[in-house]
């Protein structure tokens, strides 16, 4: 896919991946072998009928391609951009065994963008059935559930703690990967369907689940996994140490990078981002766009980076240094408690564990100091307990909501997405939202 020129990316939050034009899409689509037993579909968590939509592109019927994708996925323009396709559909593509897999994600995006541009995204609702559902959280899981239920004639209200709807899609994933305009369009489509959004509404604080139960026939908890983890190392509270969530929220949600925004963002000149997932890459690349030196410090090696493959490539193109097999053990500070560096240990890879992932261990006596003046911790997140305050919804010892299907320990309350699985992916969160909607309908709630 064509990309924004490397030089243009510094100082700009414009989207990096530029998407296919018609000709490119047709060329790519024509490479599809239209397998009788398509493996790609099995690699997709929501089983989008991939060969069928690709065939429609080839036939020039992009509208039908959209209908096919939309049947399985509520947010194709988002998923086309942020799904880890190389681990899902594309990893199973026969073409990929000898050469390049079909760029399924890029084709999905092409179709979805066509639909957005040509306003094919409107949804139709059945007549109201008089039932009311409250959804907690407006990330991909909440939005999907809202759309599915509204289509079935439910009256849906989405409660969101922040001042904007979209969850991680607006506060976490940066503009240069997922333009906010796209999320906005999806939300507008839901509003047109009659879904109501109540912003600035932290459930557990302004209302509890018990309060909601008095007003609604069912509740769907989709409050995500928004709590940042810290390492617990010495001086981690020093000035200049931030969570990736804070950095990303200030930049994305509150637009620190825009001229007219008043949100200040603290910037070092020599920044270390600790971690290796999408969150770490997004934080590093966002900070790099302010023209600062950025190093990504990761315990394992490039091959184990959990972030999307394309993001890692773009990150390296943008001049971010990857420091592998390195782990901080202490934050070094000056007398004013400002970060002046990290004491780090070298790591080595060990055998693969049961999950097939290689472990790591510290190399004794390998300590050294690494100079920096800002540290961003991107070590993963856990669910926010706020929404279930004063409710009987059961959780496990990690704070994940316990469900059967999507049903919680409370008959009227359903849950899904990151709040149930811990930090995962957009597509899985979306799928859970769909499933919850189905279960709410099936249980005749």
């Amino acid at each position, binding site marked *: 896919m064509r990309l924004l020129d490397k030089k243009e990316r510094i100082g700009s939050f414009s989207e990096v991946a530029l998407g296919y034009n018609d000709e490119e899409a047709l060329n790519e689509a024509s490479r599809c072998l239209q397998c009788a037993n398509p493996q790609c579909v099995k690699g997709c968590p929501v089983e989008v009928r991939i060969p069928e939509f690709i065939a429609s592109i080839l036939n020039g019927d992009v509208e039908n391609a959209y209908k096919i994708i939309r049947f399985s996925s509520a947010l194709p323009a988002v998923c086309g951009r942020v799904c880890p396709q190389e681990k899902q559909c594309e990893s199973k593509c026969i073409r990929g065994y000898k050469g390049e897999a079909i760029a399924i994600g890029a084709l999905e995006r092409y179709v979805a963008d066509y639909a957005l541009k040509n306003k094919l995204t409107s949804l139709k609702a059945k007549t109201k059935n008089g039932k009311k559902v409250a959804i907690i959280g407006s990330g991909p899981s909440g939005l999907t559930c809202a759309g599915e239920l509204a289509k079935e004639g439910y009256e849906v209200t989405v409660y969101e703690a922040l001042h904007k709807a979209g969850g991680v899609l607006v506060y976490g994933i940066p503009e240069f990967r997922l333009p906010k305009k796209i999320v906005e369009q999806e939300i507008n489509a839901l509003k047109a369907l009659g879904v109501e959004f109540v912003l600035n509404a932290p459930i557990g604080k302004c209302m509890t689940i018990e309060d909601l139960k008095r007003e609604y026939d069912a509740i769907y908890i989709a409050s995500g996994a928004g709590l940042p983890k810290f390492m617990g190392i010495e001086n981690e*509270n020093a000035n200049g140490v931030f969570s990736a969530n804070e950095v990303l929220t200030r930049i994305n949600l509150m637009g620190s990078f825009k001229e007219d925004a008043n949100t200040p963002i603290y910037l070092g000149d020599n920044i270390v981002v600790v971690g290796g997932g999408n969150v770490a890459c997004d934080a590093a690349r966002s900070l790099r766009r302010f023209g600062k030196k950025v190093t990504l410090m990761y315990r394992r090696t490039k091959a184990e980076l959990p972030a999307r493959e394309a993001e890692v490539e773009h990150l390296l193109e943008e001049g971010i240094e990857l420091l592998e097999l390195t782990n901080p053990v202490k934050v070094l500070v000056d007398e004013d408690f400002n970060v002046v560096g990290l004491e780090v240990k070298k790591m080595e890879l060990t055998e693969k564990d049961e999950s097939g992932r290689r472990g790591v261990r510290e190399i004794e006596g390998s300590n050294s100091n690494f100079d920096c003046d800002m540290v961003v911790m991107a070590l993963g997140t856990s669910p926010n307990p706020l929404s279930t305050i004063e409710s009987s919804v059961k959780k496990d010892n990690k704070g994940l909501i316990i469900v059967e299907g999507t049903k919680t320990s409370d008959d009227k309350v359903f849950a899904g997405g990151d709040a149930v699985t811990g930090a995962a992916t957009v597509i899985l969160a979306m799928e859970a939202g769909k499933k919850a909607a189905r279960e709410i309908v099936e249980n005749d709630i």
Partner: protein
Amino acid sequence: MYKILKNELIGENIFELDVYAPLVVNKCLPGQFVIVMAYETSERIPLTIYDYDKSTGILKMIYQVVGASTKELVDLDDEIYSVVGPLGNPSELVMNIDEWKEKKVIFVAGGVGIAPVYPQIKYLKEHNVKVDCIYGVKNEKYLILEEKMKNICDNFYIATDDGSKGYHGLVTDCLKSLDKHYDKCVAIGPVVMMKYVSMLTKDLNIPTIVSMNPIMVDGTGMCGACRLIVDGNVKFACVDGPEFDGHKVDFDAAIKRMNIYKTFEGRKYLERCEGSMHHGNCGNCGDK
């Protein structure tokens, strides 16, 4: 958008902001706070709740203009972009009100710290708790809510740095000079004040609550900007607090965290927060 009913000067650079926010007011209790944004492009500012009326849905806040973000609030007329709350936990005294009947509590408020103190004392008085209050300000120009406070406290003491009204000197010296028995102290104001009050009450053996108000973004535990060290552990002021045991808070670490404003980058950051309004008065920069 939230409707503004009042946004008026009530003291030197101090304003009262009343808005219609039933979702905040419905479940609100003394000790909690809100986060407001003047416009969609504004910083999120935590503000203490000064009063609320459950029957009308009206929420009252008091703010001091200390920087560009609070300056933006002054110019608002009819509407404010966002008000979210009630955030944080209600006051420990309010939650365990039955334990405090017949006991004596002293509040020590510094500057606009008087705003969150007011609803707490009001609540305690409604439940027959004996409450005194010391209110310290730089000079009498900064006094607000004086009459209201007099009416709800058993004893109300004013202390000014320059002696322009009431006790001439610091709130800590004023507290010492009272030489009275108290079962609990609640200190709310600049971090430095809360530190010294807590040191004193430790000597005097009075259990002490402080209310911390560091920089915040979301107010729901999501960013970690508000983290503090309490009893050796990292806590988030927004969800674990804002109240903590004054004898366990690591004030020096909290004060050091404010040193960020002494660095070059920090200065620039503060300039954006505070604009030309920087006056060294809020205690954030450590100038004072």
